[in-house]
């Protein structure tokens, strides 16, 4: 079987249980695919020894019977997750050489379920970016191209390595994290599925913190069923994260019936942005029709504060980042700058952080420092938090009026070329998250589903936003959309 890496999680699970394939075979096929995909720069720390050891253990467990769904499934882990004894540096120079002495809760749960780690995946530095161009490892590259044009495209960000690896069949699935769209935007750019669950569903313990009130982990997979399987394994209460929800985790996969008759889908008028490409508009209209054909009731809704989500985000996220990233001081882990004789501790902090943080991270830490500084705290930070309350209220009112899920485009464009945004104002790059960031501010679950190709042959995604804690229902609506859209295209292999 040469196409083992093309398997989905559900298919691999069934084949493993039937004895048609072993986890070692699957893992070796993925490791070979990774070796041949250096041009994508998706895997930045490979862990073949760990993978094969985990695969052998998984095979033994499957033979005994009653193995969980994830048992023996080879996957990639975003570099933001701390993995014991394995480099975990959030794609930053400042964490060079850092090898955690502990395992994040999410990866612990995945490994306890028998999942196999192939290695760590590229990303934007500290998850700050929408194109994977701020990584200390260099750009991850999208396996998709514009027709026969060989321009290297971004896989999106921050979970760009995860998206590229799943889309290129280097692994069966990957973990991502999403603070403003970092799972959903790269998923849309690479034609895969990604869900950010409700804030509090996945433990944040052991995940390098960016903006703690917004960060959530989630799966990036080849389809909705796989997202349900992974999410189930990743979720659950964790006493080590005080914001982790003590709620039962339902069987998400069992909730995928595809039946959405009688569900109400809201179409928010404020997401019709000025200058939005016609193809995105057309895709959105098709999505609306597909859900209507599946029996859902479509209603126009208003989320009046949408316009203020990005500016609020660019106060709150940098403010939290400036606080979270204060820990990188050259004392306890990672990089420390060389000091000249006579230089003291403040020189050490300032030089270490100047050398260790990339440009975008420095900029955000300083913006965060500014909006939290004396005299500006009320004008910026508190005002942004009040606007956040209003954004959340918009959603609450829509749900109270009977809306079950909200359909929007996932991104304002298809994947753009690496370097194309280099000269642009940082604010232009921030606009990538215009449709996704509201969901983080309101703490809601959101899923990106590939729904079509643009004229250049690049994938486009639609986003569904659900009620808090109702990921099962949301995934079922996504499943209905996926079936109607029938997106099966894969990038042609050039790497």
């Amino acid at each position: 079987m040469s196409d083992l890496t093309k398997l989905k999680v559900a298919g691999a699970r069934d084949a493993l249980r039937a004895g048609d394939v072993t986890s070692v075979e699957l893992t070796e096929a993925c490791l070979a695919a990774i070796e041949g995909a250096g041009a994508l720069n998706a895997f930045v720390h490979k862990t073949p020894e760990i993978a094969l050891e985990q695969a052998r253990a998984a095979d033994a467990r499957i033979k005994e019977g009653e193995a969980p769904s994830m048992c023996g499934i080879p996957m990639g882990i975003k570099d933001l997750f701390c993995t014991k004894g394995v480099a975990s540096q959030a794609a930053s120079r400042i964490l060079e050489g850092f090898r955690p002495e502990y395992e994040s809760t999410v990866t612990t749960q995945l490994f306890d379920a028998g999942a196999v780690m192939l290695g760590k995946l590229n990303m934007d530095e500290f998850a700050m970016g929408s194109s994977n161009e701020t990584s200390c490892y260099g750009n991850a590259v999208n396996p998709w191209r514009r027709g026969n044009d060989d321009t290297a495209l971004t896989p999106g960000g921050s979970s760009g390595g995860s998206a590229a690896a799943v889309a290129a069949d280097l692994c069966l699935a990957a973990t991502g994290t999403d603070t403003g769209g970092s799972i959903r935007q790269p998923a849309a750019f690479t034609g895969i599925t990604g869900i950010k669950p409700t804030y509090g569903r996945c433990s944040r313990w052991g995940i390098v913190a960016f903006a703690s009130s917004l960060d959530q982990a989630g799966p990036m997979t080849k389809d909705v069923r796989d997202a349900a399987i992974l999410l189930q394994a990743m979720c659950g209460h964790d006493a080590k994260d005080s914001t982790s929800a003590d709620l039962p985790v339902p069987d998400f996969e069992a909730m995928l019936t595809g039946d959405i008759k009688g569900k109400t889908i809201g179409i928010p008028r404020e997401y019709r942005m000025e200058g939005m490409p016609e193809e995105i508009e057309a895709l959105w209209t098709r999505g609306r029709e597909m859900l209507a054909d599946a029996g859902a009731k479509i209603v126009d809704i208003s989320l009046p504060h949408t316009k203020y989500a990005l500016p609020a985000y660019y106060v709150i996220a940098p403010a939290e980042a400036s606080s979270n990233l204060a820990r990188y001081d050259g004392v306890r882990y990672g990089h420390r700058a060389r000091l000249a004789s006579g230089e003291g501790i403040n020189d050490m902090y300032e030089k270490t952080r100047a050398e260790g943080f990339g440009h975008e991270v420095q900029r955000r830490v300083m913006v965060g420092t500014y909006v939290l500084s004396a005299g500006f705290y009320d004008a910026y930070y508190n005002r942004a938090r009040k606007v956040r309350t209003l954004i959340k209220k918009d959603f609450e009112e829509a749900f109270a009026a009977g809306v079950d899920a909200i359909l929007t485009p996932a991104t304002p464009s298809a994947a753009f070329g690496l370097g194309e945004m280099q000269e642009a104002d940082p604010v232009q790059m921030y606009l990538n998250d215009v449709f996704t960031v509201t969901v983080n501010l309101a703490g809601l679950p959101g899923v990106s589903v590939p729904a079509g190709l643009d004229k250049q042959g690049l994938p486009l995604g639609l986003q569904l936003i659900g009620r808090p804690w109702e990921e099962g229902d949301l995934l079922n609506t996504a499943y209905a959309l996926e079936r109607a859209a029938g997106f099966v295209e894969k990038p042609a292999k050039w790497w």
Partner: protein
Amino acid sequence: MSIDTDTAARVAKLARIRVEDDQLPALAQEFSNILDFIEQLNEVDVEGVEPMVSVTPMRLKRRQDGVTDGGMQDKILSNAPDAREGFFAVPKVVE
């Protein structure tokens, strides 16, 4: 809102990030652009609105104020750039 180079220098200092003098004008310009974008928030009527402190309305769990972990000095120090005699080592702090 326009940020001058003195303000940019002060923010860099507060953030403990060294920025060379010749970089300050560009940094100040970037700050100004981002703050201009953020200024849109002033259009919103936030009179009487509470700032959001928690995404989900739940009471933080309480736990026993007890020791649950510890006794791993070697692990704590294993990633330190400079550790000596069981401590993190840093340059002279007090003159």
